[in-house]
């Protein structure tokens, strides 16, 4: 199978260690996961996310259609704003998590996971019957760069045609970056402040615009210690922030109520949506298991697929869905699903690490780190 390449492939090949991800040849790191991770927590880093799925939904029924496929209420959006949501199957299982931006009243821009590009677009198409909406998969026409970290704003502003400090979280604005027409949304997947930048009309065989913005960002961020970041740091950063990775922490057999994504399920919105009935039933019957955060208290690093045991080591109570070493906390952390009675903060649990039951406890995980010291909520000094 030939791996796909993004607009920034030449840079990755020259500077990074490449791996396969979702059918793409992507950098896992350039200098190393830890320095890249720390650059984003403490200053600024940039990520190529051009492999992600992107779709335009246009037409008089665009809003009504999206409200039918996703669980959140798209009608709350003003033009120029976006929201995080999931979409579910008829059983209430999560088909994907995504961000929807309302550009104009009848034009929406949808961003979803690279690993679900074909599945999602087909899902959208299949359910658009009867709606006056035109769907266009524009994944291959748009380069996407995430600029993340407490210095992301100042870095991006240096190459931007407009000031950015007034842009609110989940707001999307048009701008020029080093003369290249683009849009920037104040979103990200790291827990830090930052922007996701969309460079339109930039197919992989015409990488010039994307490379120009990428290089300008590296230059603009030099004074802050900017680093290009690979998928390794992207994963460790999102894990520390308690953000779900599709395929690990959420999938078609996990519903948003147990995933602790109840806040994006709007049962009271006027329209019906796929999975609503199943989710209402699940809510009535009571959610059996919950996504939790676990921090190790004994030596060892929890990994995806490891068993979670109760604190006494009597029985298996769940499975780790994402785990790893936290560079910020210098300890092993994990997310996984456990029955209701174990979800309380402070509950001792054990992780079966290659036959050894290593002790940990249930902790606050959204995020794992201290929000007065890290993350977008902190006040910059």
């Amino acid at each position: 199978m030939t791996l796909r390449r993004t607009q920034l492939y030449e840079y990755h090949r020259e500077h990074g260690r490449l791996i396969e991800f979702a059918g793409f040849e992507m950098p896992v790191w350039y200098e190393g996961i830890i320095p890249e991770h720390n650059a984003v927590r403490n200053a600024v880093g940039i990520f190529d996310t051009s492999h992600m799925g992107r779709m335009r939904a246009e037409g008089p029924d665009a809003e009504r259609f999206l409200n039918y496929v996703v669980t959140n209420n798209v009608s709350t959006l003003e033009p120029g704003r976006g929201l995080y949501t999931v979409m579910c199957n008829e059983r209430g299982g999560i088909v994907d998590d995504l961000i929807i931006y309302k550009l104009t009243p009848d034009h929406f821009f949808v961003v979803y996971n690279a690993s679900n590009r074909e599945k999602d677009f087909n899902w959208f198409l299949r359910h658009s019957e009867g709606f006056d909406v035109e769907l266009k998969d524009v994944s291959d026409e748009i380069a996407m760069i995430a600029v993340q970290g407490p210095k992301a704003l100042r870095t991006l502003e240096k190459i931007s045609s407009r000031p950015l400090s007034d842009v609110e979280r989940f707001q999307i604005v048009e701008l020029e970056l080093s003369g290249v027409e683009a849009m920037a949304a104040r979103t990200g997947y790291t827990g830090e402040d930052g922007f996701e930048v969309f460079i339109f009309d930039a197919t992989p065989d015409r990488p010039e615009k994307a490379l120009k913005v990428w290089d300008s960002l590296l230059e603009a961020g030099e004074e802050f210690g900017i680093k290009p970041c690979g998928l390794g740091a992207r994963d460790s950063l999102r894990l520390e922030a308690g953000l779900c990775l599709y395929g690990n922490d959420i999938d078609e057999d996990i519903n948003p109520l147990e995933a602790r994504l109840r806040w994006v399920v709007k049962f009271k919105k006027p329209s019906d949506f796929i999975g609503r009935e199943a989710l209402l039933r699940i809510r009535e019957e009571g959610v059996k298991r919950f996504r939790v955060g676990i921090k190790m208290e004994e030596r060892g690093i929890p990994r995806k697929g490891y068993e979670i045991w109760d604190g006494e080591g009597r029985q298996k109570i769940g499975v780790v869905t994402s785990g790893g070493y936290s560079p910020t906390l210098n300890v092993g952390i994990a997310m996984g699903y456990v029955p209701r009675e174990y979800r309380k903060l402070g509950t001792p649990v054990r992780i079966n690490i290659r036959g050894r039951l290593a002790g940990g406890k249930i902790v606050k995980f959204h995020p794992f780190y201290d929000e007065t010291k890290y993350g977008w909520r902190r006040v910059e000094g």
Partner: protein
Amino acid sequence: MSEEYEVPEGLYYTEEHEWLKVLDDGNALMGITDYAQKQLHEIVYVELPEVGKEVEQMDVLGAVESVKAVSDVYSPISGTIIEVNETLLDSPELLNEDPYGEGWIAKIKPKNLDAELKKLMTAEEYKKHIEALHH
């Protein structure tokens, strides 16, 4: 990015990227190779065997973990673990910085050394082995 891998002469190597150094007193030191540490990158955790543990050749002896992955460490020979490098517990980065020196993992009292050495690779053979992995 192309990389060069250090493969010192005089050591023995496994296909799983451990090295073995026979000491003058008849015991042997083992660790992971430069190739192994470069593949793992940024080692953040090491699981060491217990002193006194008896191992067979190519038994799992411990594990090293990077931010992204876990990798088992195999014993190049059969014998008894007589010492482990406990410095690695607090400084796992020594495995990256000095894999053939300060990053040694365990000292083994061999049980059947001469016969088992024949199953390991020389530096020349190991160089060919890692070259082949890149084609």
